[in-house]
């Protein structure tokens, strides 16, 4: 009681040292949803190749198109949520869409059909991301944004780690019934939607900005770009994203330069995820204390450290763990922290649009980086490509540091 009163006295909107119930609820929704979607991801390659006897190579072709569509959908999701003041509704539609996709997997049995279902699923993910982050930030006090996003990302990653365990447990118990995995995954996804509907408050008002009830339309949303602090953040996120090598390449580099055996290769993403899970909350707390931009930049310093290790590639097993540790720490220090930093500079009624803008910019930048890195790898080899990327990241980080210092914190 004492803590809550003190928090209220500080104008913290009901949360001082504690994480807002809405954030915990959204964390639970993400955890449950990630269990559901990672169940499918874990068994999908086996299902396609062994279960259905398909050649899933065509999937890669659609990847570029998905990325574009998904970016657009994210922008639309964030903006529509702001406009209708219905973040929960838009997020709910996104979660619902993904939930519907799981039982659809029981019905389609062709590469094209499954590709379409996955695209729909991803549309749902794009739709819900910005409104969900807006809800998290609007439910949290200004000084506790980092912590709120840290808690959410930790819960989210926890679900991602539990999903494969559940999926392979079901496969083992049912003599390889993929239908059972998809069926259970669908039920879990619906549970996520139910938790969202029941426990996430419908309208979260920004605690500090109760008075501002401006109308939100496309022009006000685009006006965000004229705001120097958001523009600076967006530019930095894009710039750093352009030199952030995709996870797939990091693991390929680890295998190639670290001599990771083929049997261990599929386990590498778990190392990143486990580190992310453990460090997400501490990184968020640190960001609240010393400043989000500083932690965001430091996170890229960790990534640069990972690049350096990969270039050096000492022939010990410790090296592989160190790279995964740095890689996971990079995510912990940047993923939720960037959202917290954006939330700092975007007014409450445009929170979804602002988050979508920066999130989309970063996603597209990373996609461009993937294409460029892949081409550079082919032409000049992995070492040169990585060295180039490391130099680029170093320069981007210095520029970002200068740009972020230039705008008032």
């Amino acid at each position: 009681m004492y803590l809550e009163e003190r928090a209220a006295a500080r104008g913290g909107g009901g949360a001082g040292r504690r994480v807002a119930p809405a954030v915990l609820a959204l964390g639970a929704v993400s955890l449950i949803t990630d269990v559901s979607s990672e169940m499918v991801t874990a068994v999908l390659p086996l299902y396609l190749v062994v279960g259905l006897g398909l050649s899933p190579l065509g999937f890669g072709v659609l990847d570029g198109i998905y990325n574009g569509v998904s970016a657009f959908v994210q922008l639309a999701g964030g903006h529509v949520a702001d406009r209708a003041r219905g973040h929960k509704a838009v997020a709910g539609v996104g979660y619902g869409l993904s939930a519907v996709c799981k039982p659809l997997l029981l019905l389609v049995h062709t590469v094209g059909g499954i590709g379409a279902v996955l695209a729909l699923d991803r549309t749902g993910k794009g739709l819900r991301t910005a409104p969900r982050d807006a809800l998290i930030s609007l439910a949290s006090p200004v000084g506790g944004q980092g912590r709120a996003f840290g808690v959410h990302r930790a819960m989210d990653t926890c679900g991602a780690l539990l999903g494969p365990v559940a999926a392979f447990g079901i496969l083992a118990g049912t003599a390889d019934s993929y239908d059972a995995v998809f069926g259970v995954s669908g039920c879990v996804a619906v549970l996520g939607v139910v938790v969202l509907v029941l426990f996430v408050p419908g309208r979260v008002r920004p605690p500090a900005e109760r008075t501002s009830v401006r109308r939100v339309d496309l022009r006000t949303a685009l006006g965000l770009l004229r705001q120097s602090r958001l523009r600076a953040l967006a530019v930095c996120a894009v710039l750093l994203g352009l030199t952030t090598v995709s996870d797939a390449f990091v693991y390929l580099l680890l295998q190639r330069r670290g001599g990771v055996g083929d049997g261990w290769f599929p386990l590498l993403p778990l190392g990143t995820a486990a580190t992310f899970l453990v460090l997400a909350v501490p990184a968020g707390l640190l960001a609240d204390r010393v400043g989000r931009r500083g932690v965001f930049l430091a996170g890229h310093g960790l990534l640069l450290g990972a690049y350096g290790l990969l270039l050096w590639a000492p022939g010990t097993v410790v090296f592989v763990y160190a790279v995964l540790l740095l890689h996971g720490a990079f995510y912990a220090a940047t993923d939720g922290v960037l959202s917290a930093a954006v939330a700092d500079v975007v007014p409450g009624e445009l929170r979804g649009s602002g988050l979508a803008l920066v999130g989309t910019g970063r996603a597209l930048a990373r996609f461009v980086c993937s294409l460029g890195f892949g081409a550079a790898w082919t032409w000049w080899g992995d070492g040169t490509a990585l060295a180039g990327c490391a130099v680029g990241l170093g320069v981007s980080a210095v520029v970002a540091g200068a740009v972020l210092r230039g705008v008032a914190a």
Partner: protein
Amino acid sequence: MLVVAVVVLGGVAAGFVLYAVGRAQDANRPRAGGPAFAAGTVALTDAGRMVVRSTAPGPHRDELVSVPAGDPDGVRTVSGVRCERWHAAAGTGVCLQTEAGILKPTHRARILDARLRTVRTYDLAGVPSRARVSPSGRFVAWTVFVSGESYSSAYFTTRTSVLDTRSGKLAKNLEDFTVVRDGKRVRAADANFWGVTFAKDDDTFYATFNTARRTYLVRGSVRERRMTTLHENVECPSLSPDGTRIAYKKRVMNGASLWREHVLDLRTMRETPLAERRSVDDQAVWLDNDTVAYAIPAGDRSTDLWTTRADGSGKPRKLMTGAFNPVLRGSPAGPR
């Protein structure tokens, strides 16, 4: 409300699992009219026998079994060795296996001797897709599908490895080889290779090369680590025993998973569509210089083996029910 939701959804989920368990038990029970099985030993040296992966529902699903070559629907002798993909020649076999794990499934390639005993084991980076042994039994190749890192990118690439069983040297990825097209070296970030088939000289191989949505037949040399493109729209090549023709699947429509099995004459580069009208998604096997065998899905995760004439004449005939990856002793591999 939450309790109600948990109970209802939990009930539905449990229903799915129980139904699946029931079906699994059902699938493990031999079907009426299904093949008969007998204990015994399976050896690659057994004359007049064909070794296949049995896909018929029942306790021996996915097991290597041998049947009389002259009576493929006869009693199946079981080996106890389970494989997702399999091939053999001249007393060397390769068996690609998948095992469910706690966090990830594990995939392995086992090199087998003539009595199907494991000689060596290699970890695989992805799900087994194709396997081939060279006619002499010296070289082994396999292709696996490696999936993308996260749900947000449903992305698959192939990885094809070539093993020299004599020296133990493993070329982990054909992508490390040089590819030449029209006299120029091809550098492509999106290069994928699959479906290797070997010639008798213990060096030449053929495979599928894919880049920018096009597939090519490539001829390669293991020693020189080099490949040259020969022909477009060729997947899963299979070299005839006399080394003059390639049976392959040709994509009928770009973007659709529909293939028509063809034979390409390597001297004239003439394509001949085979009599099979159904889509074939398999790396065919030559039973002799005139006959090609391939699998057609038969539902319930089973496949049937069919044969058709390599010159495009005649009608497809069913060779065997509930089988995959046929290996005829001596026929495609041995010297004739």
